[in-house]
């Protein structure tokens, strides 16, 4: 019984700081937002996906994920046709923008409203994809 109590005390001493650190650590990783997906998960799928670039057109023109379609709220009507023809449930849609932007979340939200699915937002955006594909 005494040993059990000691084990419990040691566990508490270890778990409490761990919980505090997990909750309030300044470098705690941000929790994924709605429909966010990690690039490692996409890679592990080993299946085709439809990339959607939600950055401004000049950024897309400069460089983009191979095969990605450009779709942003500035030129929604110009970009949506190709997206709806290519997306009808057979491939996941993965939307990305820059690292610190929310255009991808807004485009993803609008695509879901249109009934297209599944739609994900790439966590970390274009910069993460670039790091993953040096």
């Amino acid at each position, binding site marked *: 019984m005494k040993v059990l109590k000691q084990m419990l005390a040691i566990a508490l001493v270890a778990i409490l700081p761990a919980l505090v650190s997990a909750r309030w650590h300044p470098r705690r990783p941000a929790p994924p937002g709605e429909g966010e997906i990690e690039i490692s998960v996409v890679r592990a799928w080993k299946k*085709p*996906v*439809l*990339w959607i670039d939600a950055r*401004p*057109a000049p950024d897309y023109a400069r460089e983009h994920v191979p*095969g990605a379609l450009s779709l*942003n*709220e*500035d*030129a*929604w*009507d110009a970009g*949506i*046709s190709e997206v*709806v*023809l*290519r997306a*009808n*449930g*057979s*491939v996941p849609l993965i939307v990305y923008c*820059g690292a*610190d*932007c*929310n*255009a991808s979340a*807004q485009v993803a*939200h609008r695509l879901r*409203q*249109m*009934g*297209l699915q599944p739609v994900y937002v790439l966590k970390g955006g274009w910069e993460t994809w670039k790091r993953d594909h040096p």
Partner: protein
Amino acid sequence: MELHPSMSDTNVVAQYAFHNGGTYPVAIDSVKTSCGCTTATLDKKNYAPGEKGEISVNFDIGQRVGEQQKEIMVFTNDPREMMVLLRMKILIPEVLRIAPPFVSWEKGEAAQAKSIRVEVMSTNVHVVAALSGADAFKSELREITAGHEYQVLVTPVTTTNQMVGTIRLQTDFPSDRPRSFNAYAAVREKASLLSAP
């Protein structure tokens, strides 16, 4: 900064006031925005110590609704603060609730009408027309509840070919620059026949 445009606004402007709190002149080299919908203008480039200035940011609403977040990056020659990030949140009221905003048919499916329900979110707004942007689709506007609820029936002329069309829902609000909103229609390949990107 949080902005609350009205239903009739087509743009909103945010003013960011600042002053050079340092002991040496600072130049603002450039101001960049995260979206083509946002443009920033600056009174001038160079600011002496203590001098005040203002960055004016214009946001075009377009067909956006709901919460929008935009960033403005201000680049300076101050080695202590080379870049200042301004954030802007815009809460855009919904004028029309369109459900679903997209109707589709599979290739070969019967070319029968599909329905879009349009709910008006203000008594000042009426839907006056549902205009198909392409000959490939026909659209018909019906008023279900006077001035509040409409039905748009969309029918493809044929489902033998892939095609996408826009259905423009024209309102009478505001009277000087009536706004319109889009729904979409498409004839698509069956899912099993879609090729990978």
